[in-house]
């Protein structure tokens, strides 16, 4: 850009190609493995091009589950993951847009206390308070239920902070004008605030869907029923590192199916994803 380069842009291309290769190769290999027969894979003779067993493998994986044990079909795991991911994303957005609305636009006692109470939850990831949270969920009879799976994961301060930040940029005049038109707080919320927040909501949805879909520890503890198993948990039961009998084609097909929804969202909604990522973290 600044000066003439003797080798042009060769170096950046080479480095980026190497980066893409490192990033894409494991994914590529999983896709290839899901199209080959188990015995070919187990011999270590798997070629680097697709085989002919794709339909059979995916049918087995999605509909009937892996053969060796009585496993849940991956189709129902996908469903469970989907319900959890959407539940977390929608729930988090709903409760945080409401609380941010109250904190920015309302005058009520303990307003700052409320803000700080929510803010501090930023500091306690699920991982560090996992067993007491488990106990409470169990006391509330929410084990093996979607509410138990979703609720403890939706209260976090990040979304509230993002909405609060955005609401503070909305000019006061807009609210006054709306009030002059006779709009109350509820109408202002639905007619003015919500339409203005659409991009933020969408960006947040992308980030939260991925967050929800990729949850590991909480669903692992909270679900014991096979039909509620999410795909990220289910995959661990299909592979067994110490066991030579792992059905690798099924395992890899499951990995591909587990990656597909979040990867598709990130790639197709790239702009929203980057916006959401950079804004929720700052």
């Amino acid at each position, binding site marked *: *850009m*600044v000066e003439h380069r003797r080798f042009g842009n060769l170096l*950046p291309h080479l480095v*980026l190609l190497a*980066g893409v290769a490192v*990033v*894409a190769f*494991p*994914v590529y*290999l*999983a896709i290839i493995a899901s199209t080959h027969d188990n015995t070919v*894979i187990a011999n*270590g003779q*798997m070629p680097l091009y697709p085989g002919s067993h794709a339909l059979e493998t995916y049918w087995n994986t999605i509909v009937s589950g892996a053969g060796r044990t009585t496993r849940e079909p991956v189709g129902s795991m996908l469903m469970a993951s989907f319900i959890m991911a959407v539940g977390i994303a929608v729930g988090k957005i*709903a*409760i945080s847009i409401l609380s941010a609305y109250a904190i920015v*636009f*309302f*005058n*009520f006692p303990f307003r700052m206390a*409320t803000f700080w*109470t*929510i803010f501090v939850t930023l500091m*306690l*990831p699920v*991982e*560090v308070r*996992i*067993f*007491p*949270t488990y*106990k*409470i969920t169990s006391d509330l009879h929410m084990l093996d239920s979607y509410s138990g799976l979703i*609720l403890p994961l939706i*209260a976090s301060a990040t979304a509230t902070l993002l909405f609060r930040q955005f609401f*503070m940029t909305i000019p*006061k005049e807009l*609210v006054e004008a709306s009030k002059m038109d006779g709009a109350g*707080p*509820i109408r*202002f919320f639905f007619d003015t605030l919500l339409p203005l927040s659409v991009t933020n909501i969408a960006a947040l949805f992308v980030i939260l869907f*991925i967050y929800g*879909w*990729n*949850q*590991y520890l909480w669903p692992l503890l909270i679900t014991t029923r096979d039909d509620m198993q999410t795909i*990220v948990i289910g995959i*661990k039961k299909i592979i067994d*590192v110490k066991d030579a009998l792992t059905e*690798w084609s099924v*395992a890899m097909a499951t*990995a591909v199916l587990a990656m597909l929804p*979040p990867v598709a*969202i*990130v*790639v197709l909604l790239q702009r929203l994803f*980057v916006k959401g*990522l*950079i804004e929720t*973290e700052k």
Partner: protein
Amino acid sequence: MENRAIFSGRLLACLLVFPQLAISLIFFYWPAAQALWQSFLVQDAFGLSTEFVWFENYVTLLKTPEYYHAIGTTFFFSLLVVFFSLAIGLLLAVMANRNIAGVQIYRTFLIIPYAVAPAVASVLFIFMFQPGLGMIARALQRNGIDWNPVLNGNHAMILIVIVAVWNQISYNFLFFLAGLQSIPKSVIEAAAIDGARPARRFWTIVFPLLSPTTFFLIVVNITYAFFNTLGIIDTATEGGPNGSTSTLVYKVFLDGKAGSDLGGSAAQSVILMIIVIGLTAIQFRYVEKKVHY
């Protein structure tokens, strides 16, 4: 915080904050308080009676060699993950910041790992590194390396570091790229006119100007390596062999699952909470500074 309160319906306001407050109290504050309280108690073997023992659980914990081992493992693991994921992310971002053809396509590929769940990323790499059938494992064995992460602790550690770095590259790449794009071109051009070569321009101008981003990413990556790698470890090594890949978070998980020592397990959780609070505080001090800057 600026007070721009405009509506005055107190009841409505309370209704609006109620869901989030209720969930925070039930699923955040109550469990955290429970962990804190439990860490001061000792329960007998049958769970029949409990006794308040002040800091005894912490003292016991700090006397067990395994705990120090887990601390060492966590620091070693985090150091490797933070260093490599930042270095690779920065290198790729610097290259993608050039005005070259196809940069959008490169970027699209490079953000894919972010979308892959840690546990699933583990599965992808287990497949490549599985002795006997994995492509890379076989290549290593052909070259005389007796690769076996199930038996060899160093191999297990290498495996989880690779997975964690791979999983985290996208994040660092995107933040470094955003940081690089916010550096004014004129500064770099001025240096070029003064005769500074690209490498020198990078280390004397670009890298220092990136330091807020780098600092932010170091904190975020430490948090990631400490807390978000549980899925990777549980899937790839289950903390083994012989605890060689058992980090502090993984140890809390294992000890809690075993369920024999509630007080000790709670004390471990409380120590982790203090670490998270410390890291978050550092992160916010930085944000604060940047805002005033």
